[in-house]
């Protein structure tokens, strides 16, 4: 149980700065997910919290106490690795017990804790096997079990599911979530998969190039991304963007025009914008109304019918690609012309120069 605080954390590799002054507070019992594209520094940040990477500058506090100088072995955290990192020469039981032996836990307590964790993770039946005799999912459970038996202050997960197949990933996702509910520990989870982030997190931290772009609950990030990067990163498929120029700013509605002169309205705060400013209009595929009688014409290039959902990959006459998601099935076929509507209360608007979002005044979902 612990509060993790990062203050102006910096990491330099030689002359390159991998982490550029990160400030973050992770509350006790919170499930915090670091998400970002590869190379954004999320794993480095996690390893710095773990104590496996040195902190170049700034302060890391656990429960208010500075731990920069403590070794990984002294911080009392547990980590689950992407490669599982099970000790290949030890049985599952020895793997689980290794950490406890190192802190001189009495034998019977080790046994009790290992058996408890094994029962919880349903790995009792292969406690005496070696890791190489286990499947990927079983190894993952053992890796989690190794963290659980230690009863750590904070659990750290470094892309734990990325080596599993899709189906197993969904199952394990649920299991880690329920583990968090049961244990109530602070957990920090690194992933590049925004679906994992959205489904598991209490709080998501979006990172890019060593900088925190936004911190918030999954729905905050989905509904009110602070900039174009977050808007594009959170949500699947990606948000559609259309190049526009501001035509009129009117209190609660900003009117914009695209290159062809089509006008759109977005229900966003227009402060800071003036007529003629370059901007990007953003709308999520889920929110693009397609197939109605009005709206702008698009050509459907490709279509994916999943039965319960349909994805339409469209192109506007000027070449801008649009993706639309329709619940259920659709009669539209490849090559058809269709009409797409950008509803103002579901639209986002980003300044072209800074990429920052204009504050949305109405959140479509809430309506």
């Amino acid at each position: 149980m612990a509060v993790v605080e990062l203050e102006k954390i910096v990491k330099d590799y030689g002359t390159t700065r991998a982490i550029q002054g990160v400030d973050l507070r992770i509350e006790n019992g919170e499930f915090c997910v670091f998400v970002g594209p590869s190379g954004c520094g999320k794993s480095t940040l996690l390893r710095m919290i773990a104590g496996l990477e040195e902190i170049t500058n700034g302060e890391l506090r656990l429960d208010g106490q500075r731990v920069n100088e403590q070794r990984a072995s002294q911080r009392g955290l547990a980590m689950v690795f992407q490669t599982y990192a099970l000790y290949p020469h030890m049985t599952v039981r020895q793997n689980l017990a290794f950490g406890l032996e190192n802190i001189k836990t009495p034998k019977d307590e080790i046994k009790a804790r290992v058996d408890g964790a094994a029962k919880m993770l349903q790995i009792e039946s292969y406690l005496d096997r070696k890791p190489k005799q286990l499947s990927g999912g079983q190894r993952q459970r053992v890796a989690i079990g190794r963290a659980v038996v230690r009863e750590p202050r904070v659990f750290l997960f470094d892309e734990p599911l990325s080596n599993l197949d899709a189906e197993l990933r969904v199952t394990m996702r649920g299991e880690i979530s329920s583990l968090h509910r049961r244990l109530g520990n602070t957990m920090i989870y690194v992933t590049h998969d925004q679906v994992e982030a959205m489904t598991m997190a209490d709080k998501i931290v979006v990172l890019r190039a060593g900088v925190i772009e936004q911190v918030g609950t999954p729905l905050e990030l989905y509904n009110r991304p602070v900039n174009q990067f977050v808007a594009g990163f959170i949500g699947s498929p990606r948000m559609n963007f259309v190049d526009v120029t501001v035509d009129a700013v009117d209190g609660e509605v900003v009117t914009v025009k695209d290159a062809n002169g089509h006008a759109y309205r977005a229900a966003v705060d227009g402060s800071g914008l003036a007529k003629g400013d370059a901007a990007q209009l953003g709308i999520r595929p889920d929110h693009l109304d397609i197939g109605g009688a009005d709206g702008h014409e698009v050509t459907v290039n490709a279509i994916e019918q999943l039965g319960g959902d349909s994805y339409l990959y469209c192109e506007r006459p000027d070449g801008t690609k649009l993706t639309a998601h329709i619940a259920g099935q659709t009669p539209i076929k490849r090559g058809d012309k269709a009409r797409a509507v950008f509803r103002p209360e579901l639209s986002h608007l980003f300044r072209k120069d800074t990429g920052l979002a204009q504050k949305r005044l109405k959140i479509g979902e809430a309506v």
Partner: protein
Amino acid sequence: MSLGFLTRTRGRGRFDITDWLTWIYLFTAIFLMFGPVLWVVLSSFKTEAALQEYPPTLLPLAPITVSVEGYEEPLQLFRVIAGEHEGKVLAQVRRIGLMSQMVDPANPAEKLQVNINDRVPEREFALALENYTALFDRFNFGLYFWNSAFITVVATIITVLFNSMAAFALSKYQFRGRTIVFVLIIATLMIPPTINLIPIYLVVAELGLVNSPWGVIWPAVATPTGVFLLRQYMLTIPDDLLDAARMDHASEWKVYWRIVLPLSAPALAVLVIFSVMWRWNEFLWPLIVLSRSENFTLQLALNSFQGELQTAWSNLLAMTILTLLPITLVFAVLQKYVTTGIASSGVK
């Protein structure tokens, strides 16, 4: 299955020319490699007299003797190949000049004269085990064996320990000058050992280790080959395992001892084989450092059989066989690691 493998041919069902060549090549190789060893083994069971015989025989043969009525000593049997008594097997009573006085064991009363060129000794297969027992009774084999074993075992343990620690540091820690240190270690391979001989002797003498087994052990324990072999292997151990151990409260020593060392077992086995072979077979350095015979290793003891004027070949050969045995056993047990250890330490 192995029979199917061995009798497999390139030609369908019959021998192709490549099959013939393969078999010839392999049998020649076996003969070249094992022929001398086999000969040494067989010769070690010959008596000193049989060893001096010309032409030499492959099998250890000893002259047959019989006790004949009327003679106290057993008499040697000969087969007569020419002359009056051709074809008979007779026992020799005594030899007088070119003639030998013989008796027929069946008829001991009658004495026969035979030219010594007309008779050949009757021989039978006999193992001269006294060659071996003499080693223990007269030549203090046990002491030399103990000296050799002590030096080999202790030097190997220290070699493995030191080299693996060096390899661990060089493969798993990032520090300034890591490459330079590694290159320096490897570079010592280029210096011929004979050049080091005198400086090392001076150091050993200064430390008072002359005529002590430690004088042989200490200069040998740091081997660049060992460091290189282990480092290359340890590079293949994923860093995540070490990090996982660190997260599991393991100290750096524990990471080394509980994680890295067990996982390097194949490479360690290779180094053990090498080290045992090097130390056991080492001759020049012990010869220089150990001058008192109670400190001799087996190799030095073997050498001392070879005198200026005469050589005790029978005992020398017997001791050679006993010297070969332990190292053969070590190799037989650990050889399966050699290929895996060397193969996987080279690549990746």
